């Protein structure tokens, strides 16, 4: 029953060969099998959002998908945002606006925001507040996260970040 299944996972444009039992979540496979520990795991039942990644253009909870379900999909994680050691505009805006303190929630917020702008470029300010309520942050009080997003909203709408995160 818990026999391992072999498949390949495409993460930030790179193929990883995985062998894991079906019950392994995408979040755990990213961390343990792909060694991409930027995706964090908090509650493991969909509530906190620390594990949020982008799968086929949708921001989703990586703890509520099994890794086998992501075979054949394009997965994007926080590691795919910076290019050649240059932070993406949203990452830079987080720093400039003091939008993180301990940083545990940050990868989840970055992927949530990137995924949402990719799918719904016309997202308005009210919807943005609702969007940011999807993930939990224990440190910042959210205000500075909202400031960071608003600062780069135009760039995000132009999909520049995700375009660079995508394999060419």
């Amino acid at each position, binding site marked *: 029953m818990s026999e391992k299944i072999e498949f390949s996972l495409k993460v930030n444009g790179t193929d990883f060969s995985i062998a894991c039992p079906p019950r392994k979540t995408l979040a755990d496979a990213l961390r343990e099998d792909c060694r991409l520990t930027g995706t964090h795991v908090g509650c493991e039942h969909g509530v906190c*959002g620390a594990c949020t990644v982008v799968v086929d253009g949708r921001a989703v909870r990586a703890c509520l998908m099994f890794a086998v379900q992501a075979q054949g999909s394009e997965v994007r994680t926080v590691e795919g945002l910076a290019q050649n050691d240059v932070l993406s505009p949203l990452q830079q805006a987080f720093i400039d606006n003091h939008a993180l303190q301990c940083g545990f929630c940050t990868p989840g917020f970055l992927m949530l925001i990137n995924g949402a702008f990719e799918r719904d470029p016309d997202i308005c300010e009210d919807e943005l507040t609702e969007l940011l309520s999807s993930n939990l942050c224990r440190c910042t009080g959210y205000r500075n996260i909202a400031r960071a997003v608003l600062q780069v909203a135009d760039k995000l709408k132009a999909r520049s970040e995700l375009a660079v995160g995508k394999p060419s």
Partner: protein
Amino acid sequence: MKAAPFDYFRPASLQEAAERLSVNSDDGAMILAGGQSLVPMMALRVAYASELIDLNAIKGIDTVSRSERGIAIPPLVRHADFHSSDVAPGPLGHVLATVSRHIAHYPIRQRGTFCGSLAHADPSSEWCLIAAALDAEIELLSVSGRRRIKAKDWWAGVMETVREPEEIIVAVHLPLLPDDIQWGFYEFNRRAGDFALGMAFCCYRLTEGLITKPHVALGGIEEYPRRIPEAEAVLEGATPSAEVFGEAARTASKAVNPLEDPATPAAYRRDLSATVVRRALTSATQTKSSPALSA
């Protein structure tokens, strides 16, 4: 906080899924759709599956189809697909777009499915309320064939439906709404994105200023959502007014048999049922005339 071991099967068609389910459902095989209820329940070890039959690789079941009378929602239509009101013609599209934004949070809505909500049958499911309010029909497939169940006959208790373990929901059918419909939705919860403690959907038409064919439905209050005929009777033929809405709301709250939990006594939910009905009815009077919007 990790799911117990299970086998994984990825069918290429609904027929193949139904065949597999007919063989393995007795041993505890289950359908996996959006996974936004089942996966957390497996992680919390309150649900166990011997095998998950994952519908997500099946082609051609992710788009709403339209007919003259209504829409059909197949198993891979996600909550977020309703964010745009274009998904259904006329007022129905606006109803679904408004209600969809009350379900959980954005990333959950990217995967959770309409059919999965009907199967899961949480008393506080927004889609279950809409199915009850609009007299949806649920279409089931198994190796023995297809059958359709009316929403009023669908639920059997909290998270229980008349679906047999070997049956798959292959579509939920919703009727179109007339262009002159007045409708309102109101949901109360303690934090945005939480499950509703109580919610109401109400709609009616006006004939020479009088209410005709009113629907009043409550969710999150009882074991499952349903229309409240006593409240509808108060509205039928009346002129919309704060007094009439107040009376319909009080009548609804007397007619329900509310759920109770440690944080929420039944009396609280009874009270809440009047509030949400009154607010939904009040918001129905502000429905913008929709013909221009129907795309």
